[in-house]
């Protein structure tokens, strides 16, 4: 089935694509038919930069369980860094 459900979140960072590193400012996340993965549905994460060439993005497609494991790994990695001063609001880069 097509889910049509898409979540977009503002992010700040860099992604490494075929042409090198580029700034990313939002991520598009959805669970729907994949482009490439041999799955009926995949959790897709697309790291993007607004106003960039359409080929300037990095995407992954994961099965649901892998996506949950990844989410857990992300949170575990962050929790290992106990200093909460690392958590800044998106867009506050460089602010004191």
């Amino acid at each position: 089935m097509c889910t049509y459900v898409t979540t977009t979140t503002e992010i700040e960072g860099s992604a490494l694509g075929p042409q090198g590193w580029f700034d990313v400012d939002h991520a598009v996340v959805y669970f729907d038919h994949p482009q490439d993965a041999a799955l009926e549905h995949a959790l897709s994460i697309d790291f993007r930069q607004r106003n960039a060439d359409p080929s300037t993005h990095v995407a992954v497609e994961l099965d649901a369980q892998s996506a949950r494991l990844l989410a857990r790994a992300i949170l575990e990695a962050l929790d290992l860094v106990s200093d909460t001063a690392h958590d800044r609001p998106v867009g506050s880069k460089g602010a004191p």
Partner: protein
Amino acid sequence: MEDGMTAESITIQGHRGDDIEAYLARPLAAGPFPGVVVIHHMPGFDRATKEIVRTFAVYRYAALCPNLFHRYAPGAKAGDAAAAARAQGGVPDEQCVGDVAGAVSHLRELADSNGKVGVIGYCSGGRQTYVVACTLDVDAAVDCYGGRVVASAEELSPVHPVAPIDMTPQLRCPLLGLFGAQDANPSPVHVARMEEKLRVHGKAYEFHSYEGAGHAFFSVDRPSYRVEAAKEGWKRIWEFFGRHLAGS
């Protein structure tokens, strides 16, 4: 026996006269031929969709697939364009109808057209086919497992403001529906509701649901491919289009 065909990317005028990319395949034999607009699935204007377009030409239809994602990423690879379209919220139904209208016009204006044009869509394209068949003057429509034809109010959005099933009174051509009995959307319950609506409004339709098949059973490059359902489905398509798109 002439079974050759040509296939190429062209530019057509779509919604609001915008130039958009499209893939056209035509028989090499002498016509006239009916036309078929192929509406691509959610993964986009991709290799598998172009293969379907060429298949229609082998069977003596002029087939044209408009790239509904063209505006979001002109000249981009299919995957990049699909991702760009997704990031911008998807294709509005109004825009899709405009692009398909341009494709229909292009096919009718071909020198070897018999004047008849059908439309077929897969996955999200199946839903869009239903919308098109309720909006444009086409001669036949085939909905291949289009999800969200039956849609709740919560599932509507600015790009999809009306549930296609609510457009059923305006359906203006015969409709063939091909579904997988194991599909979650459209589920057998959804399909039954569509049939009821079509029956109540006295529409010409023909539905087939295939056991052992789910969504995307025509997709030869996906794990959802089901050989028997696809073979039977193609037979239904040829019979249906043969009956409704024959020249007068």
